[in-house]
């Protein structure tokens, strides 16, 4: 790091703030982080100085409005390392459900009383679609442990290497029953990046895919398996395009099933 005490900023774009909460909820570890580094900007935590140059910029949220596109370039220019946090920043987030839908423009009028005040880009995109990103931390929301581990690595000058194994890895290490094999549920766990500790399968619920695609898995084959379980095209599309709709290969698989429909 450049200074004796490294500087950190936390920026928010189009998002629900849940990833920042993962950081705020770190408790003692956040106090420790504040001692190891200067937190220059973290509006939700009470520090406000968005233009300050920093060593690490943690970015939550997707690029969804024209001013986001400008602001993310300024954040990139101000930071040595840019780390994106969560499904919005890494894969467009749920707001990317509008991507590629011709009808999306009509929704503004249906939802807002004065749609003329809404300025949105046609697509909600991950930060990496606009500026180079040094590290992506996935999840909806991110896990506090993974964020602290990555920040700790950067503070020590090490390259963080977050795992990309599927959720099944966690399920099997925890000796959990398989909701797909035992229950016939359309679980996204086999192709979803772990990090949640198999939260949903642990309560008997199929994985929603919050952490996005795992590394080098065959997601298209899981979609075909869902077909064999009796799911229709729109249902399969809904699962792959739910939380990380802009992340490949979930995006193209989901779009393919959407176009095909239930017919």
């Amino acid at each position, binding site marked *: 790091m450049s200074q004796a005490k490294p500087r950190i900023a936390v920026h928010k774009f189009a998002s629900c703030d849940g990833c920042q909460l993962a950081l705020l909820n770190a408790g003692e570890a956040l106090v420790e982080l504040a001692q190891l580094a200067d937190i220059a900007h973290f509006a939700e935590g009470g520090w406000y100085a968005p233009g300050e140059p920093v060593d690490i910029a943690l970015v939550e949220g997707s690029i969804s409005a024209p001013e986001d596109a400008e602001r993310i370039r300024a954040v990139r220019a101000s930071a040595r390392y840019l780390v994106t946090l969560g499904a919005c920043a890494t894969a467009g987030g749920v707001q990317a459900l509008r991507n590629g839908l011709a009808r999306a423009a009509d929704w503004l009028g249906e939802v807002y009383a004065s749609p003329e005040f809404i300025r949105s880009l046609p697509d909600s995109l991950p930060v990496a679609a606009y500026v180079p990103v040094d590290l992506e931390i996935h999840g909806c929301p991110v896990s506090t442990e993974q964020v602290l581990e990555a920040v*700790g690595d950067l503070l020590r000058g090490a390259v963080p290497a977050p795992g990309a194994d599927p959720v099944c890895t966690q399920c*099997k290490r925890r000796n959990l*029953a398989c909701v797909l094999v*035992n229950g016939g549920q359309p679980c996204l766990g086999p192709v979803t990046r772990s990090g949640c500790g198999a939260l949903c399968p642990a309560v008997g619920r199929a994985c929603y895919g919050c952490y996005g695609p795992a590394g080098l898995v065959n997601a298209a084959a899981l979609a075909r398996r869902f077909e064999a379980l009796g799911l229709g095209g729109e249902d399969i599309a809904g699962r792959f395009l739910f939380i990380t709709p802009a992340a490949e290969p979930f995006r193209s698989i989901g779009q393919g099933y959407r176009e095909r429909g239930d017919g």
Partner: protein
Amino acid sequence: MSVPAFLPRPQLQRVFDALQHLGYRIVGPVARDGALVYEDITSASELPWGVAARQDAGSFRLEAGAGERCFAWANGPQALKPLVFAPVEPLWRMERKGAGFEVRMTQATCRPTAVIGVRACDLAALALQDRHFLGGLHADAHYAGRREDLLLIAVNCTHPAATCFCASTGDGPQVSRGFDLALTELDEGYTVAVGSPPGEKLLALLAPAPATADQLERERAALHRAAAAQTRGLPGRQLRDVLMARLDHPRWQEVAERCLACGNCTAVCPTCFCHAEIESASLDGATSLHLREWDSCFGERHGYIHGKQLRPGTRERYRQWLVHKLATWHDQYGRSGCVGCGRCITWCPAAIDLTEEAAALCAGAA
């Protein structure tokens, strides 16, 4: 060893009492969340009484079984592996000391553990895990500690699943070695065979009557039926040369179209031993825990060496798994790494059948 004994069903609890008297923690099968899992139990009443399991490729369903048996099923996703090869465990802890650092080895937490309901395939797999973790120049202390304290009460398999093929690999359905006691479940109770001095000591506490000729005959018939009922199998016990000669077989690509590369087959395989070692450092970098965790040859990091991914495609990953298991295992451990438990078939979310793939890959070989 002595002649087999017989324990009437109501007296099964006495096995638990005797184990507790000898200071053992007891692990056994229970029906939980639609599966059969091995966990800590204290009484025979917790066993899966009247439970059967229907297994097929990619599917496992608990059903009501006929009669009042508690071992009328073949297996669940795990048995012994997590007890000896821990899914996650710390190996050592490092702490900064001045300009250097200090390393402290961690001790595995071990206590005498009796496992009830171990099958022949589990014992064959344990023997292979023993060779891997204990057989080389550097025995693994964590594994050794847990292994040493294990008392194995096996159960001969009378109800194989549709996915079972231990008769074809030669590892079951009857247990032949590596057990302390071996039970066979009959309508009215259990025949008990002794396999070791600790088993003999345990049986002495139970002081059972000898099994009758009729009971032993029914045991023999049940085991014969269990072997005959198995419909799946491998094309042979020595597939090394044929598989090594077919590394470019088109079948590898076909199976890769279906394989999710999720690694479930490796997690449930009782002989798979691959693990990753990772650092879990404190935020200030003053201490770090060095952890070992189950890994899989289907995972991204398994095939990664500095700057290069050696197995980028699902085809290479599936091939790595199957060729190691059925072919190069012979070079490493003197036998195939498959014990015919069928877990990789049942617990594959994509319903891929190892025996079907092996048959297709080896088709036409002399």
